[in-house]
Every structure is written in structure tokens, then in C-alpha cells.
């Protein structure tokens, strides 16, 4: 189904190629759309599902925790070097292709050899590849379209990625139940093939290498310290990074904690409700993202960021009081609002801030690391709070952190939209 849609889409698109110099052909645009879609498909198989899979492979909880902690730390630390690397690489397509092959390879390795050294290696490879993939896709997007179109372009990226995530979650949930947990990883690896096909449709000549790293045609500095210069003393970037730490500190554990409450309260519908809690916000992200990208050009970035952070705080506050599992799913839709805002604004704001520095991807790595630190601490914090004081207090604390983040955005974050030329 997805494969047929993909091929039809690209053919129909390539039928009416526009040959204007600054605007990319619709073949490249469609290729980027579907690259986002299929990479999201591949990535959905990773994440919390790994621990379910390893449990079926008779792994102890200690080993599972160790592998996830080590690979999580690796993926956190790898973002900045990967961003620097993507800035330096001439071909962003090559970076994306290497990452796609590596992610598929690690999925296959997980399926084939669920033994400790192999799983650890596969998880590290997946972490490194993901670090490379995120900036590579952002760089291709930035290099492909003009400055005025970038908001909408990033919105489309988020739309296709979230459709991919939602569909893959449903498909892999069914696959895990009906076939086997191992088959989920084979399925994930298989999605890399259409991802590479989509990548081929993006014409390399249409990716402006200077714009793709957000910069000027300057000579690349040699040392890492020199490359990070202009990032560490970039005040708006550091403020934005701080806001993202708070966002992910509040956001990271909210869904898992809420899903755990649903498991506790609901009867036989718990699994379906949790699936809905994962998939429904993805659909909302798909609907909202391009619109948010366009509004970011009209209204500016600041108001949308405030709305996104406020939606997270409101969601946390509702989870304190709401008891009905069905109402919880409705409140969970707010996740779609904040996810759409952050999904579009993160690369957009970073591209605004790093304009003319040539360090877009390195800066993306810096804020990505900030977010990952917040998300990692979130699980620990919420687990501690809910174990010792109950889930309402954990939600109250997460909502408070989100509110602090909203205030920080409102009070400190400058408007980064470039002034019209």
C-alpha cells in the first residue's frame, strides 16, 4: 500500500517538473517528503519496543537497562560531532544514505543476533546513524528551498514524519502481536529500501551546499573548538537550548506515565487506548505542521513557541485531575499541538539564529543534545516522583516544569524571524 502510493506520488510529481533555477523540482520535494515518511517508519521500531523484544529473547532487566543506558548516552553525546560532520560533508544526500543503511543494518542485526555484544553494537550504530540522519534531513531541506519557504518545508517534513510514525506504530503493533516481536525489526529494516529510493529522487544539484549549512562560503575551520565558535557564545541559541531542556524534561515522561496510569485504570481497552494516545497526536501533528510553518513566517516564531510550551503545561495540569481513560486520550491531543510546534520550530529557529555562520547542523546538534538531556532526566524524575508520591504529584511537577519553560520562552526568547529583505 505505502509502496504503491509512494511510486504513484513520485511519478505524478515528476511528470510536471518545474525547471526554474531557484525553485527545486517537485521531484525533489516529493523525494524529501517520502524520505521523512520512510525514515520515521524505520525509527518507530526502535525506542521502548526494544526492551519488549529483548525480554522475549530471555534478557534480564539488568542487561536491558545497561544496553539502553549506554546507547542512550552515546546517542546524546553524538549529536554535536554528527552536526559538525554534516556541516563539513559536501553531500548531504550521502550523509542521509549512510545513516539510512546503518539504521537498517542495526535493525537487522537486532533481529538476527539478540546476544549482548551484537545488541550493544547495533544500538550504538543506530544511535550514531540517528545523530547523522536528523541534521542531514534538516540540511537537505534548508539547501533545497529558499529562505521564505523554509517554514512550510519544515512543516511538511514534520507532517510526513508523523504520518510515518503513526502508521508504523499501528503496523508494528499488529506485527508484534500477530507474527513475532522479531519480525518488527525485519519490517523496520525493510522500510529503509523505499527511504533510499526517495532519497534518490532528491536532485543533488538542487541542494545549495552553502544554504544547507546555514552559511557563507567561508573556509572550514580545522579544529572542533573553532567549529563550535559562534555557537557557545550565541546567546539566543543558548536560551533556546535551555527552553528545550525544560520542554523535554516535562514532556519525556508524560506519555509513558500517563500510559501506565491507563494500564492501571482501564480494563481490556488499555492497549487500544495507549495505541490511540500514541497515534492520535501524530495525526494532529500531520494536520497542523505545514500550517504552523506558514504561520511562523506571518506571526513570527515567538508566539507559536509560547503556545507549544503552554499546551504542554496544560496537558500536564489536566493529567493531575482527569481520571477517565477516555478523557485522558482527548487531553493527549494537546501533545500533538506541542509536538507540531517543537518539530517545526526547532530546525527553523536554529536556522534563523545560525544564519550566516555556516554552523547550522552543529547548532542543531547543540540544541538536540540539550533536549536529549532533558528527556533522559525526565524519565528518572517522573519515575521517582510517581513511585514515592503518586502519579498526580508527578504530573503536577512535570506541568510546573513546562510552565517554567513557557515563561522562559515568553520572557527571554527573542523573536528570531529574519526581517524581510
Amino acid at each position: 500500500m505505502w509502496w504503491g502510493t509512494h511510486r504513484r506520488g513520485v511519478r505524478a510529481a515528476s511528470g510536471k517538473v518545474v525547471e526554474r533555477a531557484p525553485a527545486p523540482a517537485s521531484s525533489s520535494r516529493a523525494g524529501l517528503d517520502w524520505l521523512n515518511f520512510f525514515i520515521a517508519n524505520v525509527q518507530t521500531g526502535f525506542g521502548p519496543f526494544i526492551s519488549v523484544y529483548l525480554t522475549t529473547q530471555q534478557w534480564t532487566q539488568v542487561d536491558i537497562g545497561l544496553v539502553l543506558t549506554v546507547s542512550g548516552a552515546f546517542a546524546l553525546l553524538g549529536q554535536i560531532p554528527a552536526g559538525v560532520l554534516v556541516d563539513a560533508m559536501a553531500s548531504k544526500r550521502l550523509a542521509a544514505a549512510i545513516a539510512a543503511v546503518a539504521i537498517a543494518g542495526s535493525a537487522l542485526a537486532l533481529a538476527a543476533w539478540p546476544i549482548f555484544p551484537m545488541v550493544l553494537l547495533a544500538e550504538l550504530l543506530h544511535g550514531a546513524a540517528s545523530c547523522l540522519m536528523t541534521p542531514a534531513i534538516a540540511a537537505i531541506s534548508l539547501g533545497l528551498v529558499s529562505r521564505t519557504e523554509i517554514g512550510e518545508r519544515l512543516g511538511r517534513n514534520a507532517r510526513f514524519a508523523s504520518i510515518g510514525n503513526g502508521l508504523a506504530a499501528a503496523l508494528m503493533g499488529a506485527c508484534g502481536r500477530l507474527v513475532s516481536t522479531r519480525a518488527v525489526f525485519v519490517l523496520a529494516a525493510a522500510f529503509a529500501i523505499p527511504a533510499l529510493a526517495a532519497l534518490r529522487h532528491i536532485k543533488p544539484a538542487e541542494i545549495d551546499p552553502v544554504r544547507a549549512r546555514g552559511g557563507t562560503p567561508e573556509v572550514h575551520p580545522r579544529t572542533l573548538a573553532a567549529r563550535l565558535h559562534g555557537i557557545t557564545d550565541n546567546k539566543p541559541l543558548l536560551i533556546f537550548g535551555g527552553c528545550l531542556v525544560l520542554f523535554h524534561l516535562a514532556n519525556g515522561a508524560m506519555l509513558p506515565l500517563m500510559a501506565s496510569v491507563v494500564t492501571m485504570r482501564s480494563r481490556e481497552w488499555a492497549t487500544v487506548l495507549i495505541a490511540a494516545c500514541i497515534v492520535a497526536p501524530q495525526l494532529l501533528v500531520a494536520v497542523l505542521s505545514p500550517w504552523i510553518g506558514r504561520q511562523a513566517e506571518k506571526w513570527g516564531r515567538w508566539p507559536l513557541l509560547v503556545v507549544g510550551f503552554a499546551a504542554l503545561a496544560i496537558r500536564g495540569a489536566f493529567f493531575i485531575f482527569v481520571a477517565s481513560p477516555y478523557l485522558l486520550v482527548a487531553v493527549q491531543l494537546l501533545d500533538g499541538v506541542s509536538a507540531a510546534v517543537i518539530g517545526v520550530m526547532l530546525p527553523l529557529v536554529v536556522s534563523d539564529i545560525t544564519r550566516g555562520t555556516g554552523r547550522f547542523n552543529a547548532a542543531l546538534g547543540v540544541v538536540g543534545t540539550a533536549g536529549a538531556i532533558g528527556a533522559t532526566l525526565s524519565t528518572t524524575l517522573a519515575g521517582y516522583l510517581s513511585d514515592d508520591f503518586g502519579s498526580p504529584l508527578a504530573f503536577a511537577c512535570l506541568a510546573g516544569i513546562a510552565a517554567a519553560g513557557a515563561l522562559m520562552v515568553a520572557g527571554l526568547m527573542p523573536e528570531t524571524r529574519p526581517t524581510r529583505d
Partner: protein
Amino acid sequence: MNRANGAIQLWVVHAACCVRRGFRAGAMICATTAALLAAIGIAQAQSQAPQSEPPKTDTAQPGPSQTTVPPGTPPSATVFDKSYVQGVLGKDVRSATGEDMGRIVDVVVDSAGEPRAAVIDFGGFLGVGSRKVAVDWNALHFSPSDKPSEVTLSLSRDQVKAAPEYGDKKPVVVLGPTGTVHPMMPQDEPAKPE
């Protein structure tokens, strides 16, 4: 931490419960570890004492009592048919009516080494929202000949869903087949399922 210092009746195979959780509170971890080590010490002392008494065979099992074995003694070997014994980690658990009850992720034993409870990872979707719950070992039924990959639990989803989460720093609350909650540390107040 008072609860951990008292008579710890249980210690847990694999010192379970995610390494990630271990990051929580350093001081508490140290105290818990000390208590746990003490408990292990007691448990080993208890299990070693009777081991030397019955003069069953010349051979001894490899393990903590290695020092008492003269070097060069071959270990005993008992052969079980695959239809007679089975590993339990990662096994699918179903209720009597065939509901999906999750998977066995750990086994809780008492100081004599007898299994008292199985920890099942229950519920959730794609790994999100699952809860670890300890269920009475006697509520589990293993059927090796029929379906070797499945274990039957004489509890329903409805009975298990509200059980308190199993964790390393908490008293182990084991869910029994009658649906009531028996705290296995008598000095504590019984934890109430919501």
C-alpha cells in the same frame, strides 16, 4: 529506609529492576545495597548450612560452597528432559480465559531459594505504559508438553491491572489467586491497590 533495615525475607535474583532506575537517589541506593548485601549474606549462610549436612553424594554443586569441595572433584550432572523443565524468563503469560497477561521478566525467591513470585511486565503498547507486577508463584501454571512458550496465570487482567508496581526499593507486594494483596513484609502497612 526503616523498612529495608528490618528482617528482609526476600532477595531478588538478578538484583532486578532497570539500571535506569538506579540513577535516582545515590544515598538510598547505598543504603539499599548494604541492606541487600546483608540479606544475601544471611541467605547464603542459611543455604550453605544445610548443604553440608545431608551426605547425599560426594559431588557438590558449583557455586558459593566451592571452598569446601576438594579440587579435582567432578560436578554432579542431572539430566532433565526438555518436556519436564523449562526456563521462564521472557515467557508469555496468559490468563485462564486467554487474555494477554504480559511476560515473565524476573523471579522473586525467599531466603531458602524457593520461588515466591514472578514479576510480569504487564500491559502497554509497543513497550509504552507497561507495568511490572509481582504475582504469586503458585498462581502460575506451566504446561511444558502442550504449549512450551506459554504460562497460564490464574488471575485476570482486571485483578492484575491495579496491583502496585514492583520496584527495587519497595516491599514486594505479591498478587495472589484470590485477588487480595498480601504484603510479604509484615511490619509494613499493606499497600492498597487503587
